[in-house]
């Protein structure tokens, strides 16, 4: 998908960069090999980009302009309508908005797009320090100790799926299994927090 967009718009000074929040290159490999990308297709096992950009779920898309400024902050967007029955978000208007941005510089927004990046809370920042600690312990084969800190990170930032769902494969749990449905219910019960309503919460 992103490769097709690159082929279409690459000559207009546009490049997609995909980033996989997977626990190993091998976990992301089948997806990348199938896509045959000529644009950068990167692996972020430690969730460095999630931490730096305050991302809490996938897929998260950020528009970055020629000067390295964020033109449109974190939004959940889809490159196709494959999962539309779950996501309810169409890819068409988003892809049209990207084309318009590349060709004319126009930045289209809708009610789901926050004006600016909601800054992370102290709890979220601490959650990310806990995540880094958990990841380090996991790599050292200290699974039990790692679990303590993955849990702590999830408690500090309960709506962060990159932590709570993203740690499931690392911990040998099924990210589509019962633990995921538990997470989903928990997230739903707190009001389905997303980038758009996070931005609203913090403005008020």
């Amino acid at each position: 998908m992103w490769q097709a967009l690159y082929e279409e718009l690459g000559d207009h000074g546009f490049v997609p960069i995909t980033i996989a929040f997977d626990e190993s290159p091998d976990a992301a490999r089948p997806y990348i090999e199938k896509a045959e990308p000529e644009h950068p297709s990167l692996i972020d096992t430690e969730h460095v980009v999630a931490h730096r950009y305050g991302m809490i779920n996938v897929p998260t898309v950020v528009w970055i302009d020629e000067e390295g400024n964020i033109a449109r902050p974190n939004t959940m967007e889809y490159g196709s309508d494959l999962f539309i029955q779950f996501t309810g978000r169409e890819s068409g208007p988003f892809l049209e908005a990207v084309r318009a941005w590349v060709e004319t510089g126009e930045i289209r927004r809708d009610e789901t797009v926050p004006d600016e990046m909601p800054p992370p809370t102290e709890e979220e920042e601490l959650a990310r320090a806990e995540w880094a600690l958990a990841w380090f312990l996991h790599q050292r084969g200290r699974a039990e100790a790692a679990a303590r800190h993955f849990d702590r990170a999830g408690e500090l930032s309960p709506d962060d799926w990159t932590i709570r769902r993203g740690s499931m494969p690392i911990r040998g749990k099924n990210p589509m299994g019962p633990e995921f449905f538990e997470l989903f219910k928990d997230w739903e019960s707190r009001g389905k927090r997303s980038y758009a309503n996070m931005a609203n919460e913090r403005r008020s």
Partner: protein
Amino acid sequence: MPSIPFTIIENGGSHEIDATIDRKRGDSVLRLATEPVLEALGWTQKPEGLCQGESCIPIGSRPNLITPQGVDLVARAEVLGRPIAVDQEESVASFGAETASHRSGLAKGIAPDFTLPDLSGKEHSLSSFKGKKVLLIAYASW
């Protein structure tokens, strides 16, 4: 005091510090030998305070931050305005991002730089795409 290896994680890297931990104090203060900690993290202690290059943070109001027994890691994190996660049993501590500057950078709309590998292990930095419009797409198999 026995010397044990303690690990400090920050900015995606880890520093092994051969340090002494005072566990006999009866409180929960985690102290690491000052010099190795400051050296690993690129800080120096000057009369003005704790300094990184020319910029210094005064520590005069915190006499317990650095004592002959060592530096209080948690207090140091507070002074620097950075979150810290500690596992004493595993002798590991992880410093988070400098909260204020991380927030103000994002608030100003500056896209944080990063360097990550592709499948072949080749590294790519966001900053090398200046002059182009970049669509960052984060996804996962989970």
